[in-house]
């Protein structure tokens, strides 16, 4: 039986996109000098012109953040800081639909995800951290832990507003002020968040947003007035940041790349596992640093599971991100699409077997069909490099030890998954897997109370939970 779905587009009338945006510095929008276009990756329609921040814009933002830190924010009690965060959380909830539509337009991810996952988690992050603001003495960091000062935060395009929340909420709760740069292709929700700061009457300069590209980010990293860097993005840029701050006293948290192993034992519940695999790699078009991008199957069930997976993949609806029925939206940019295409071609060239369900992709915009590769070996580029797209590499194993060796055979260590009905095996595997987040019989779950971050070259430090606070505080005496 085939279900046909009529289009069910979410209205975009709720958002009001300006023709041009400036930076948000010291509580006000200030016009930028140079601009670049931000587009809807599903249609290539130009949505707005974004300011390209330079060294002087960053300098103004840092100066504003320093002033706000010394004059207002550090003098405020934790209780009052927390109340600002609660206000922000409430306004985000009130304007959730507006944020969801805007995020979907600018990023290309399905409205189902922005509406049900991204934006609710954003509000939850502010609500969670609001409560910490006056309870930091109980965070296990000694009595009266102290903020660093001005935090420079650079975030990626895959979860634009959610990554802003992961950065801004803990920074403010712990008493730091912020200079944040959203990703080049996804600035709009950050700029709408600036309006939320105004509505919440957050003191001027506590949150400053400078838009731009990599050079803007570098200006933040290198600014002497920044005390702490928080970066989410590629491992390459993470290493550059580590080198750039080597001769300084700047602290850094880095949330970088991954090549998550999703290990399926032969006693796993196959139907649930298939759902978990699909969620692991096709959630957010696979633009997820912790994606389960390497599926490692026990040989006895591999054929059966791959068949089930193909049947399930054929039901994935690829298309208009604003359509409420859409599962897989647009690839965020032409550049990212080229990268995915290049790595998928390498998979073909190196001898892995590619399969995608039949699906019609729009001629306009950036699209990539959900794809699996079978017959992948550990030497293949598609088993080693982060694709950051809806492409799954499938490997097999015979013994549990072999599964763990393959899973851990990567310089990354961000996430892993394990599927089995046997409790002792689950606990054994979660112990053996060298990753900061291990999902057992589930995948890609996030919560503000749950620490997130990687081992090895997946980065430094944690975000979320009690552990995430440590990044923004100096140990109390």
């Amino acid at each position: 039986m085939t279900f046909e779905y009529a289009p069910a587009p979410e209205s975009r009338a709720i958002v009001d996109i300006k023709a041009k945006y400036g930076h948000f510095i010291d509580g006000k929008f200030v016009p930028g000098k140079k601009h670049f276009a931000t587009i809807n990756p599903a249609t290539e329609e130009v949505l707005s012109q974004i300011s390209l921040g330079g060294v002087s814009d960053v300098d103004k933002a840092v100066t504003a953040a320093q002033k706000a830190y010394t004059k207002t924010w550090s003098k405020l009690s934790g209780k009052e800081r927390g109340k600002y965060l609660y206000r922000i959380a409430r306004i985000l909830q009130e304007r959730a639909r507006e944020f969801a539509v805007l995020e979907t337009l600018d990023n290309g991810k399905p409205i189902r995800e922005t509406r049900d996952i991204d934006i609710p988690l954003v509000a939850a992050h502010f609500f969670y951290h609001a409560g910490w603001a006056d309870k930091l003495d109980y965070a296990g960091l000694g009595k009266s832990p102290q903020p660093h000062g001005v935090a420079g935060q650079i975030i990626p395009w895959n979860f634009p507003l959610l990554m802003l929340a992961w950065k801004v909420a803990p920074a403010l709760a712990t008493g730091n002020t912020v200079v944040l740069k959203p990703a080049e292709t996804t600035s709009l929700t950050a700029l709408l968040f600036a309006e939320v700061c105004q509505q919440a009457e957050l003191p001027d300069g506590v949150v400053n947003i400078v838009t731009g590209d990599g050079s803007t980010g570098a200006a933040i990293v290198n600014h002497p007035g920044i005390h702490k860097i928080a970066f989410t993005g590629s491992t390459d840029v993470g290493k550059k940041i580590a080198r750039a701050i080597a001769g300084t006293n700047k602290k850094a948290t880095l949330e970088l790349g991954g090549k998550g192993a999703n290990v399926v034992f032969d006693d796993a519940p196959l139907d649930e596992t298939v759902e978990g695999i699909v969620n692991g790699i096709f959630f957010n078009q696979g633009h997820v640093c912790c994606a389960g991008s390497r599926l490692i199957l026990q040989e006895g069930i591999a054929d059966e599971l791959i068949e089930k997976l193909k049947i399930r993949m054929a039901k994935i609806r690829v298309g208009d991100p604003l359509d409420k029925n859409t599962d897989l939206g647009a690839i965020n940019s032409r550049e990212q699409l080229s990268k995915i295409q290049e790595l998928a071609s390498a998979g073909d060239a190196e001898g892995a077997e590619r399969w995608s369900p039949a699906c019609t992709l729009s001629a306009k915009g950036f699209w990539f069909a959900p794809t699996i590769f079978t017959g992948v070996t550990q030497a293949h580029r598609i088993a080693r490099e982060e694709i950051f797209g809806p492409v799954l590499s499938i490997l097999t194993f015979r013994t549990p030890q072999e599964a763990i060796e393959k899973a851990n055979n990567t310089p990354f260590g961000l996430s892993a998954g394990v599927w089995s009905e046997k409790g002792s095996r689950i606990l054994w595997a979660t112990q053996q897997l060298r990753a900061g987040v291990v999902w057992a019989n589930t995948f890609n779950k996030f919560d503000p109370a749950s620490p997130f971050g990687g081992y090895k070259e997946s980065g430094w430090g944690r975000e979320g939970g009690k552990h995430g606070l440590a990044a923004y505080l100096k140990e109390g005496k």
Partner: protein
Amino acid sequence: MASPKKRSTNKSAPRLEVKKTFKLFINGAFPRSESGRVYEVSSNKSGFIANPCLASRKDLRDAVVAARAAQSGWAKATAYNRGQILYRIAEMLEGRADQFASEISLASGVTAKKAHDEVLVAIDRWVWYAGWSDKLSAAFGATNPVSGPYYNFTIPEPQGVIAVAPAESFLAFIDAIAPAIVSGNTVVALVPGSAAIAVMSFAEVLATSDLPAGVINILTGSHDELAPWAASHMDIDGFDISGIDKKKRSEIKVAGAENLKRIHSFDGALSPTRIYAFMEAKTVWHPIGV
């Protein structure tokens, strides 16, 4: 009554002291440096003391191989067991406190009293760190109340192989290795200059304690030479650079960025954050349901 000298087998000269050859400590054994190089430790008061090995890059690589091989087994030992092994080191050190005091005094020139105090502090550090082995999860772990039918917990795990470059003192060395190993890491220690004398005697304590081979590996020599190699070694996960000159730390951090090593330095104050700095938090999710 015969004086001690007269008891000498050779009636014409006092008994000649049997001096120790100072070697490296790698994988529970005492090899010489593969480079064949040594350096001289001497003092104004006593003159020549010894020729410890001047460890080479190859020695460092060998030590990392040993440390990596030993790591999973050491991490798998129960926390109770690791705690007892660390405590046992304290016991054995206590029994030989006088020897270490005299070696520290001889090599560094501090008074006998000061040297003895340093050994006693070092012993108490082992006792303090030993007790942490089974409390790290309580202090640095959590169960997290996520919004959904999931059991979610965070536990600290050892990072793997940690290099340590302590300052030129016995206590600085103990302060670097004890917090690194108590969680289940293995260590490659780069011990500079005259600290080699007491530290290599301490290796004898380790060799006869219950510590598995390869958990602590000790190289003596020069930080200037060894530390950049350790910083760029791709199979070292963390680096305690407390003993590295402040002006040279930036170069170490740049080299360490290649595999995003966790590089830290500490001011010497006793804190469990020195342990946690070389641990990673792992968060596990599992659904709850019938």
